[in-house]
């Protein structure tokens, strides 16, 4: 049973929905911030795609005697502790860094949106219990949560994605619930309810499309965070097992030689940072565009 709606008698049954806040990708070119962010991300995607064809060395080719070398003509970014070419490893490592974070966030958005939609729309005890649980989960320090999960299920690409997705879900569900609470009392939702639409129709055709903009922009920022989390897992030795060239692991292995050759730790760290910066810039730019369109 739907609650009776207290609306004036001449309330029109067809209400024009507010214009959806849609990201118009062509307008991205008008925001320099978004453009720079997109360019950085595109750079790494291209690197990941063409990387295997352009790298001068294999990821496990080691050169005897060339240990922890700073950048030179032969190795443009220098070498690591086993005499392996840093540039080649960095480029090949880009593959997992442009695929795993979006997968993890995609999964988290799916889970978080489902929880947030249901909790926000149904309200009542369901909302109360689920959201309290999400609050409790958010009290758990994220890195600790990753580590506990990875210890339990083991380190592999799929498991890293699962761990990051699980830890990211509470925050997303909180955001979506907030958006739903704001949207569910709008006229177009009331109109749909009066037309006798099903709950599923209202959730997916009326509410979700109008919440999609903020969820996407938030997701973009979270892809940056996920990149950094996966880097941190690698750094702590619980990322993808070797011989995968994992940026975080590369940085942590180079830690012991940091006083000798800081570049070996610096380049993989900066590579991770550039993806985080790229995501943040693109998200900032998109937010500005959405605001200027209103």
């Amino acid at each position, binding site marked *: 049973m739907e609650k009776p709606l207290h609306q004036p008698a001449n309330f029109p049954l067809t209400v024009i929905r507010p214009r959806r806040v849609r990201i118009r990708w062509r307008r991205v070119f008008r925001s320099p911030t978004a453009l720079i962010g997109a360019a950085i991300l595109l750079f790494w995607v291209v690197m990941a795609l063409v990387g295997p064809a352009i790298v001068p060395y294999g990821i496990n080719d080691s050169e005897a005697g060339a240990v922890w070398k700073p950048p030179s003509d032969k190795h443009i970014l220098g070498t690591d502790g086993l005499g392996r070419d840093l540039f080649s490893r960095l480029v090949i490592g880009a593959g997992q860094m442009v695929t795993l974070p979006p997968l993890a966030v995609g999964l988290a958005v799916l889970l978080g949106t489902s929880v947030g939609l249901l909790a926000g729309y149904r309200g009542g005890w369901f909302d109360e219990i689920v959201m309290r649980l999400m609050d409790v989960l958010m*009290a758990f320090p994220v890195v600790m949560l990753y580590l*506990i999960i990875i210890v339990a299920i083991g380190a592999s690409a799929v498991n890293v994605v699962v761990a990051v997705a699980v830890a990211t879900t509470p925050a997303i569900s909180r955001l979506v619930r907030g958006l739903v609470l704001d949207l569910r009392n709008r006229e177009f939702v009331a109109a749909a309810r009066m037309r006798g639409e099903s709950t599923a129709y209202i959730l997916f055709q009326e509410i979700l499309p109008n919440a999609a903009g903020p969820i996407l922009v938030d997701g973009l920022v979270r892809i940056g965070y996920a990149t950094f989390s996966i880097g941190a897992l690698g750094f702590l030795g619980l990322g993808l097992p070797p011989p995968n060239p994992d940026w975080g692991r590369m940085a942590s292995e180079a830690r012991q030689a940091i006083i000798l050759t*800081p570049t070996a730790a610096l380049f993989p760290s900066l590579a991770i940072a550039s993806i*985080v*910066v790229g995501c943040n810039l693109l998200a900032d730019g998109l937010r500005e565009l959405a605001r200027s369109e209103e």
Partner: protein
Amino acid sequence: MLRFILRRLGTMLLTMLVLSILIFVISEVVPTDPALKILGRESTPQARAALSEKMGFNRPLPERYWNWITHFVRGDFGESYRLGAPIQPLVARRLTNSLFLAASALLIIIPVSLLLGVVAGLNEGRWPDRVISIGSLLSISLPDFVMGVLLITIFSWWLKVLPADSSLRGDNIDLALHGRKLILPAATAALVLIGYIARVTRVSMIEVMASPYIRTAVLKGLPRRTVIVRHALRNALIAPIAIITTQINWLIGGLIVIEQLFNYPGLGSLFARAALENDLPMIEASAMTAIVLIVLSQLIADLLYSALNPRVRLS
């Protein structure tokens, strides 16, 4: 007030209960055979059976959970499988070190971020604001270990003024002896948060300065300095202080990567090592300790915050 505290204590206990169950379930139920997890695949079935017997892995789950949590509450954290030593003294020592680090970071964060935010907010759109805003964006975007690697490169490799290694002999911190070793890890943690808090302060300052009561004060002919210091700051700093209290969680349980990067013997690096070595009792004890501390400090922070902001009703 009393009712507020009692209710908060209730939620606090509930939070700790739920999280303790979560820790227990993830570390002992998800891997179907904890003994296999600890000993590895090369171990003999006899060794695994013996360990299961010793650690009680073959008991029913509720009994195992009850045993673990009641011992934990009494301060008996069990024995580390890897080190063969009681966990509790180790955790206590590492925790002290971590708290020193968190406190040093806070000592940098609070004045610097509030000052930067206020200066940016008062100069909205002008060059100080632009410089601070770009700096904040960098600080927000750089992951903690990237920030740490940058600081080590600058201060240890290039300028050679600060040590890159913060390990302490005997794991006991002594400020007179180890003060210099605390600087880089604390600065790293601080830099990660400063940008975010400065941003919040800036927005809050801009909002307050645009409010009618400030215009009244200005039109009344009060000097700008008085308006800012006596009237604006009180309100503008409430939001950023609330944000700082939400970051305690990270300062206590999240400095794992920074501690690991600097070889600092804190609770975080203890936890990271336990995770690498599958030392389940140690993982559970250190995670639970961090959570108890986080929940308690959150309560204290909330009380302080409500004392500071009379508009928050304690109900």
